[in-house]
């Protein structure tokens, strides 16, 4: 008996609206992701890939079907319980970085630790260590506005790392970056996946970005139409 997959969606449906106007963003999705995988999700817009990410990220709930995380069923959890899952197991990276403006890099990275209830003396070393991991030592006191796009995304990655997550969910992490910075960010994510054993689930629409992952999943019209293991570009 092998351990259950880290993320396990079975027959997950997510629909918006009612009756005639009902739209099925996800239509009976089955997806299992094991610990340590680096998964890229691709698909045209409206294919359901973002909805799948939101459900995996406990930001949204499936309309039907089950979502097991570490073997526990999550689909029925309330808002606050899902917030606790996000706080303790998940880290988010967004296309638009989503850092707090007029707030230093260090304070941004501290944010999830504050909600974990850590006192300053416990969270400051953790936040500094996370910034060091993404190569931003010495930039602790910089505002997002004083940092380049690539650096901002590194701060966001540090913030995701600070809470010591099992999974990092990246929603088009390179969408706002030029190709040079994009590849730097992808190499960073790959390193975190390989060296820290962090599971990464990433949505992207760029083939060469998806190529960094070890598994590619393609969504079309709310269903998975392709699911293959790839080499993982180096």
């Amino acid at each position, binding site marked *: 008996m092998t351990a259950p997959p880290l993320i396990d969606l079975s027959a997950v449906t997510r629909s918006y609206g009612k009756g005639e106007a009902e739209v099925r963003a996800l239509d009976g999705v089955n997806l299992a992701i094991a610990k340590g995988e680096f998964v890229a999700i691709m698909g045209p817009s409206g294919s359901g890939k973002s909805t799948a990410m*939101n459900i995996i*990220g406990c*930001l*949204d709930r499936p309309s039907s079907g089950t979502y097991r995380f570490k073997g526990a069923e999550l689909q029925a959890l309330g*808002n*606050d319980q899902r*917030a*606790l899952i*996000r*706080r*303790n197991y*998940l880290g*988010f990276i*967004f296309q638009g970085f*989503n*850092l*707090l*403006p*007029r*707030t230093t890099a260090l*304070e941004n990275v501290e*944010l*999830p630790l*504050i*909600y*974990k*209830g850590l*006192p300053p003396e416990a969270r400051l070393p953790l936040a500094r260590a996370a910034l060091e991991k993404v190569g931003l030592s010495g930039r602790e006191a910089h505002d997002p506005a004083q940092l380049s796009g690539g650096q901002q995304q590194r701060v966001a990655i540090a*913030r995701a790392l600070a*809470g010591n997550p099992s999974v990092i969910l990246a929603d088009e992490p390179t969408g706002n970056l030029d190709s040079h910075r994009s590849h730097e960010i992808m190499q960073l994510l790959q390193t975190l996946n390989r060296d820290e054993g962090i599971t990464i689930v990433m949505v992207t629409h760029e083939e060469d970005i998806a190529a960094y992952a070890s598994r590619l999943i393609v969504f079309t019209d709310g269903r998975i139409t392709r699911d293959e293991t790839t080499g993982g570009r180096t």
Partner: protein
Amino acid sequence: MLWETVRLAFRAIIRNKLRSFLTVLGVVIGVASVIAMVTVGQGSSAQVSANVASLGTNVLILRPGKQTMGPGPRDNATPFTLRDADALSTLSAAAAVAPTANTSATVVAGSANRATQVTGTTAGYLAATNWPLVTGRNFSEAEERAAAPVCIIAETVRKSLFGATDPVGQPMRVKSVSCTVIGLLAPKGTGSFGQDQDDLVLMPIRTVQKRLEGNDDVERITVALRKSVTAERGIRDIAALMRDRRRIGIGQEDDFSVTNMAEVASMLTSINSVLTGLLSSVAAVSLLVGGIGIMNIMLVSVTERTREIGIRLAVGATSAQVLTQFLVEAVVLSILGGTIGIALGLGLAFAAAQFMAIPFAPQAGVIALAFCFSAVIGVVFGFFPARRAARLDPIDALRHQ
């Protein structure tokens, strides 16, 4: 954890100085005006009470002409005479009687001069008005009879004519009459209507009548009643005597008035407290408006910070934590505003007290109340925006531009 939240609130407030300032402006103005109004009101109440004490209790004032309220032209009733005053002093109810004749005149001493009020009266005036001398002496009976050129001056006149020198024994000129200063009155301060009560020169009444006015008129008579006598009985006795002396037939109205100064004093006190209450309630309304201002800007702030809230929710904040954050921010802001408002209000009240020459009377209770009230405003008007922030959907919030 709460301390942590308060620290975070301070951070957020400092991060947005202009917005924070605009948010609290309403509360600052509201609290400042309440504090200023109440403090000035208390000060002027204290002033009125002091005036009441200086009037002496049980003082009645007789004037020719029918009863009218306040200043203004009186009808042409016959003036009183000194014989009326003598008759009044024979009443058992009267402790002291002081007839007065007033005129305004320029007084000169050396090279200094001043336009002031000259009141002709008798030695009984000081007892009737409960006004002691600092130095010198009262008029003698001989001086009163002889219309002697002597005068007693009050503080303001002393200051502008004699400065540092002792005025007693000094020569002084009132219009064209050369006279000698024989006494100095104790300072009395500002009167109930804001007039300077110390801008005054007293002379024997005959001196004023004969040498300054050229008539025998007595404009008013001040009667201090004996302690054991009620004002009602005093008024009745005086009215009966005066009706008799002025030959007013039965059924005819009095052609003179008797004013009870205690009544005037209590009227002034109540006018003062009504005014203070009125102004304070206007100020309280502005405090309410200030609270609504906080709510308004907090609501805008929630919309503006939707994305921030989304980020906080995504990294694992519960809706209770978001609610607490916004609520604490609102309370910290309004307490900050309240504190600034208290300081500003006390400053304004102090300046007003200096300007109006009334005592500066800060009220610890009112200050504490204003402080608590501003905290309550933060809770009440911060709750609705905070709840709205806490109820945001993280996906929508993150997508918000």
